């Protein structure tokens, strides 16, 4: 492997790798920067693939097994790409007792996917969140990164539909 001052080469000339490298550099390429660096990768690329895990391992000089261990331990990290649109249903306690199961069931039925899955055409991912902290507005959902409170199944389906076919 070609190296420069002991550093691995960027996997491609995609500019986003430079941002990832900058995070590692800011933390002195110390192993304790692992989670921070993975956050940056996910922010830039949307998910963590094998190339990214290998690159992070080499950059921070930690075993690939540890990188994989951390990436799979924390729920926030995902190893699969998300769909073009996302629908996150909060399943925190307040949302749960105020109807989150019905919201999940509605999306599952309408789009034929279970939580954690993406539709075959890659349009929509259905996800759940442990708690958004929007308990005052339960039940809450996040459709394409916008939080909506006090939603009903029909309203949620309409919002998701509007996202996919504006």
């Amino acid at each position, binding site marked *: 492997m070609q190296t420069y001052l002991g550093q691995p080469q960027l996997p491609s000339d995609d500019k986003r790798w430079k941002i990832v490298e900058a995070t590692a550099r800011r933390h002195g390429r110390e192993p304790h920067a692992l*989670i921070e660096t993975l956050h940056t990768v996910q922010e830039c690329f949307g998910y963590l693939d094998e190339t990214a895990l290998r690159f992070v391992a080499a950059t921070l000089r930690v075993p690939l097994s540890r990188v994989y261990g951390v990436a799979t331990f924390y729920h926030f990290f995902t190893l699969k790409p998300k769909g073009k649109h996302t629908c996150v249903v909060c399943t925190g306690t307040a949302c749960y007792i105020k109807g989150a199961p019905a919201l999940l069931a509605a999306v599952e039925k309408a789009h034929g996917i279970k939580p954690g899955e993406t539709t075959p055409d890659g349009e929509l991912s259905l996800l759940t969140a442990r708690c958004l902290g*929007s308990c005052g507005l339960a039940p809450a959902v996040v459709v394409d990164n916008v*939080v909506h409170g006090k939603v009903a199944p029909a309203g949620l389906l309409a919002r998701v539909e509007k996202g996919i076919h504006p």
Partner: protein
Amino acid sequence: MTIDELRKIGEAEREAQTKFQHHVCVCTAASCLSSGADHVCDAIKKEVAETGMNHEVLVKSVGCMGLCSAGPLVAVETAGQTYANVTPEQAPDIVRSLDTGSDGLEHCPPDMPFFARQKKIVLENSGKIDPERIEDYIAHDGYHALVTAITELSPQEIVVTMVQSGLRGRGGAGYPTGLKWSTVAKTGEQEKYVICNADEGDPGAFMDRAVLESDPHRVLEGMAIAAYAVGAQKGFIYVRAEYPLAVKHLKTAIKQAERLGLLGNNICNTRFSFHVDIRLGAGAFVCGEETALIASVEGKRGTPRPRPPYPAQEGLWGCPTLINNVETFANVAPILRNGAAWFAAIGTEKSKGTKVFALAGRVANTGLIEVPMGMTLGEIVNEIGGGVPEGKRLKAVQTGGPSGGCIAEQYMNTPVDYESLARVGSMMGSGGMIVMDETSCMVDVAKYFTEFCMSESCGKCVPCRAGTQQMLSLLEKIACGQSTQADLAVLEELCDLVRNTSLCGLGQTAPNGILTTLKYFRQEYDHHIAGGACPTCRPTEVSQ
């Protein structure tokens, strides 16, 4: 920075603000933001500009005002009015109301019990100051405690004050804060760390998020005072990645404090230096446990380790580490400013001060509240919360998140303090309070929490990893009526085992949800065992 310079900044800010005849505060904390508060704020600013009232009206983005269910909230400070459910279209009405008084706007009366029954210490600035301006915080006595502490007090004096105040950890377990500080302080001269635990993983809890979003400087000031008292030079705030607004406000706050020399090297021209860095969590409930949190800050999987040694002796990278919760740090500055005796006079004999709760679920007024310790659950739910809506009957109050338990209606006269809540089988926890009415099936609730603990178990110790799984499968059997009383007996035995043999707090408290629902609602379990559903399990609720 000296105390005089600090006073000057505060005075200049107050003067600048009093030039405006009217102060319009728009809550732009996360909850109101998701109801469209940013559009409301823009609309009001635009209206003010268009009507040429730029020099009379100050429009401020402020933090959480508490009554999240009625958001977006807009407070006109000068008129003492708070408007609820404001839409951008109402901006002209609000601006007009400044001169003519309001008409056609929805009010929250100032004497409404939701506001009147609270006592605010931690949240005193929340909803009043602009969290992104350090000057506004300084104008509200901010950083005075820090500057006074490092220029006039010795570290020992601060620790003594904390001990005398009787403050206990607000993360849930209630360990005396002063004792923790003195343990770290006594470890001698070496590298030490201060960590702020803002990994608010309990579902149904958003107190820490609100504090960080609404008053981030308060937490930084508390951490800096703690660092001075225990002799640490470096601090970390471990905050959930799911709270982007809190992270943004914290980053801004750290930069501002560094610019004014309130954080960084040689603060106030003394030998004391303190640097704060943010570490993002990545969605693991177990990281709320202090040793797991430390592992996560070190960039590892968040698995706990046996204690002792406690983090106060051997924590981050093996160095003595002080870990406190957001709310605990937020209490530090007021205690130093007003004295230990003032703080100790609030609350009950063993639980001093106030506690912030996130009130949610089947209750009319949901949101963030702060009450003196010792107020009863009934007062909180019925007076501050406004009772259960739609004429439904209160069934239980769940406190303490997945580690806590469900407290039945007949125990509503239980005062909220660490000991009383433990006596009824629950715990204070970090402050989530979920109200449940007659439509909630308690077997289903127990199943929900057990599923949570099972999936959040880190897998390090067997009782928690395997035990929670077995508990869940037994509960599922019970819920669908395929079990016998013998299964229930096994479940109880298993709960006892998991509680007594798990490595960390997650496993030790995981059975609480089952144990409390069994204690107070055993008949529902019996119904399920006998027939597959209890009277409250209405299948229509799920499929509607």
